[in-house]
């Protein structure tokens, strides 16, 4: 499981290995002044996937592109967009992959159906077993 660490280490290190010259976007590391908007933006950022690091949200990444995405999210929220509008804007460009928020769709319904099915089966087995005994 050292791989766990190497993976994490590379996630930390990789984005910065490709050094670029530009300073971070203004709202990459700056919170919005309106606390309600900042909270909404933060909540949204935690559910958007960093496209460069691939297994972290943009809220947890030092990658420059994640910073630029945070900037986009914050200025759009500040401009009055709802979190869902911002999410849809990104999904329109990158597909469902960019969002961790599970939406029930033609491709994702088994994610929800299978756990429900498992519980039903377990319940059924219980019911049968304990009824038989009684």
């Amino acid at each position, binding site marked *: 499981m050292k791989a766990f660490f190497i993976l994490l280490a590379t996630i930390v290190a990789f984005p910065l290995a490709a050094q670029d010259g530009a300073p971070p976007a203004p709202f990459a590391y700056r919170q919005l002044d309106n606390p309600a908007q900042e909270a909404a933006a933060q909540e949204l950022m935690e559910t958007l996937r960093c496209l460069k690091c691939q297994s972290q949200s943009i809220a947890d990444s030092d990658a420059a592109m994640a910073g630029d995405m945070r900037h986009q999210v914050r200025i759009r929220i500040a401009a009055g967009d709802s979190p869902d509008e911002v999410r849809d804007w990104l*999904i329109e*460009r990158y597909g469902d992959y960019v969002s961790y928020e599970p939406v029930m769709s033609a491709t994702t319904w088994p994610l929800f159906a299978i756990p429900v099915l498992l519980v039903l089966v377990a319940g059924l087995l219980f019911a049968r077993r304990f009824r038989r005994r009684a």
Partner: protein
Amino acid sequence: MSWRLWLPFMVFFGFLGLAAYQLSQPKDDEIRSAMVGKELPYFTLPPASLDLPGVDSRYFADGKPKLLNIWASWCLPCIAEAPQLEQLKEEGAEIVGVAIRDKPTDVMRFLSQHGNPYTRIGRDDLSEVQLGIGSSGVPETFVIDGNGIITYQHIGDIRPENVPVLLEELRKAGQ
């Protein structure tokens, strides 16, 4: 013997089949843009170098298909694809550059070292255009038709074998 006892075995073999199939497939980590087939979003970028003009999205709707190359002077694969861009230019392709998070001095040094295939280079300091067209890395190259519609996306550096593909896509976009 109950069929239910075979259930774990069958589920497991389903997984094995899937895993074996995926292991045999070449790993595809590319994130394709969902904007292919859609219109280029509106943007205006200031020039990224002193010699070339900046880029405006309306510039693409002049009837002639073009290549939109997302690149940066700090990106190593961009050096690797420079000869192929040169070749595309010689074959008559018009290449518009968008430099991501870059400085004019670095851009100009890169162009003097590795050649300049571009007619215009826009400076995208906040990755706005990159995010706007659904690109997730540098370098990437998009084919834009004469009406400003994105028709094709190439991810990663352009290898010699990709050149004919891009020329063909440009030709199709021109019809």
